[in-house]
């Protein structure tokens, strides 16, 4: 789960990281009032779960409270990569001497948290990794020991030469690691970590992703969840314990298993179609799940055909067939449904489906090419 900048900053502040103050405004008037409160120049920053806010015009400097209001009026409601901005963060503008990058994430290879830091901050770290990989210092943290003081020093030493700045940054490294672990994060990033002309180190942007698997024991972080910007269907799917991602095509896909779901989407494309979504109904395909899945798929007006691809391993495919039949009785669906069921009890399942008037297949290639044909014809 991605956090908003202002939420990530709350976590960082709690860990002791020097973060400038900030207030969240949902109206231009609030934005103006907060800017007045802070005095001086402020930055108005769109709070949205997407990168590239700056390029999209979602981050603006305001010299006066009135200007802050004008910026907020323009940014609130703005669409950034398909997500709507509902909140802006108002924060005093800082004098910046240098900008560095500090991030920690879970590294697959070392099976451990890994720091990446670079004196070249304020830009996309992937860009730096690409153009100037030597500018990035990496450190794997042994989870049995945590970040050790000399390791924090070594990281800080990659950013600065001045002993005073190194000492501040060394402290920030330890605080960031603690914030990362205590929040159950999969990624925590300060970009940029700035130095001011007065010799202060400060985190002026913050990005944190929480490991979804940690949320059950961190209700205070689950409470940070903000679905206001995301497609309604994805919110509904999560509530129904389905994994759903909206895409731009017209073939609605309903598959058991993430790998098979991806392969199904790929095959739609292979046969000249475009998938309307990724949807994994998971291992136990109860009728209720099938109902919810169908509701979510059919809510998308772009969908021209619904494609089921179910491989019954432990799951009995006759159960799934019954689920589909039951589900379609209760939902009014005006697009064709094509179904592929194979594996455990497939004869029984195909019988059930045919009796209910569905086109049923046992081959994945057949069903997908049929679905694409129907979509392209519609």
């Amino acid at each position, binding site marked *: 789960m991605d956090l908003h900048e202002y939420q990530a900053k709350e976590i960082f502040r709690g860990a002791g990281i020097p973060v400038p103050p900030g207030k969240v405004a949902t109206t231009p008037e609030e934005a103006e009032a907060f800017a007045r409160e802070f005095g001086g120049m402020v930055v108005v920053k769109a709070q949205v779960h997407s990168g590239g806010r700056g390029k999209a015009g979602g981050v603006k400097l305001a010299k006066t409270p009135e200007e802050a209001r004008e910026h907020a009026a323009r940014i609130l409601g703005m669409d950034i990569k398909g997500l709507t901005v509902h909140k802006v963060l108002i924060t005093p503008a800082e004098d910046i001497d240098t900008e560095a990058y500090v991030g920690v994430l879970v590294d697959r290879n070392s099976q451990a948290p890994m720091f990446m830091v670079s004196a070249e901050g304020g830009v996309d770290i992937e860009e730096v990794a690409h153009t100037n990989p030597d500018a990035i210092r990496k450190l794997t943290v042994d989870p049995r020991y945590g970040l050790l003081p000399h390791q924090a020093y070594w990281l800080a030493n990659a950013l600065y030469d001045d002993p005073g700045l190194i000492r501040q940054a060394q402290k920030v490294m330890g605080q960031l690691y603690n914030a990362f672990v205590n929040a159950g994060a999969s990624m925590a990033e300060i970009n940029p970590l700035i130095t001011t002309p007065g010799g202060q180190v400060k985190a002026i942007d913050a990005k944190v992703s929480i490991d979804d698997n940690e949320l059950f024991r961190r209700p205070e972080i689950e409470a940070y969840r903000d679905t206001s910007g995301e497609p309604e269907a994805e919110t509904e799917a999560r509530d129904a314990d389905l*994994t759903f991602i909206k895409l731009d095509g017209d073939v609605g896909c309903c598959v058991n298993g993430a790998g098979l779901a991806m392969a199904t989407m790929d095959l739609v494309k292979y046969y000249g179609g475009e998938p309307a979504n990724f949807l994994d109904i998971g291992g136990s395909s109860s009728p209720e799940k099938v109902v919810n899945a169908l509701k979510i798929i059919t809510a998308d007006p772009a969908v021209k055909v619904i494609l089921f691809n179910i491989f019954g391993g432990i799951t009995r495919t006759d159960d799934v067939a019954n689920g589909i039949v039951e589900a379609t009785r209760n939902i009014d669906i005006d697009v064709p449904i094509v179904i592929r069921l194979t594996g455990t009890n497939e004869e029984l399942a195909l019988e059930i489906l045919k009796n209910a008037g569905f086109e049923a297949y046992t081959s994945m290639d057949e069903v997908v090419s049929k679905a694409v044909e129907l979509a392209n014809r519609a």
Partner: protein
Amino acid sequence: MSIFIDENTRLVVQGITGRDGSFHARQMMEYGTNVVAGVTPGKGGQTFEGPDGRTVPIFNAMDEAVASTGANTSVIYVPPAFAAGAVMEAADAGIDFVVAITEGVPVLDMARAHAFARDRGTRVLGPNCPGLISPGKAKVGILPGQIVAPGPVGLVSRSGTLTYEAVYHLTTAGIGQTTCVGIGGDPLIGTKFIDCLAAFKDDPDTKAIVMIGEIGGTDEQEAAEYVKENLDLPVVGFIAGQTAPPGRRMGHAGAIISGSAGTAAEKMEAFEANGIQVAKRPVEIAELIRAALQG
């Protein structure tokens, strides 16, 4: 032969009295896996009723189970909050091979558990994996036993049902398997492609390998280099997620394209560059393997 499990596997089911644990314990016993013990704290001394009137003793803890039954392998069906602890308990009890089925285990829990298992020389498969099956010998996990058959192909995959799809095509084409391993879709997994490839390399019965990857990470790329440098066997690869959008987690926690890294295209290129034949559709996997085995 086969890898990781066979007729010498003596299995403990951790969480045997739970809904999933009890169901799959019976499935594994029916397949012929030698299930020697179950563990559920507080239910030690009770007996698990398997198929055909067979029973399995239940213990409170892994150390007791291992001491009483000489178990060497365990499979974990406990809830996510306790799964990493169960891995460590198994490793501490001297289990050689732990298969963690549980989905939704916190990643930082697993970072510690993997370190712990490494310290003790215990191999972990998973978590969030379907397990593995050595056809005709043993199955550990949730892979369906009816779609596999003994034969010359080693299969390793990050996926569950997609693996069934591939195995199904192989078996219906008359091509059996030495072992099919589902390594799981989490970011931190205990056994990776390379570990399985190395094991298949040492298995004289494995004559060809299927490797099914997906978007996210660089394990497939590294495995491809390993194949080129170390394997003389034909390898067929498939990558799911060619149409996946960047930055979105595709079901599996590890299946996510970060920026420009971990795309299907990148992985398929790495396969081809290292002599691995790439199947464009799942059905092609069996076709390419058949050709390879005949060649």
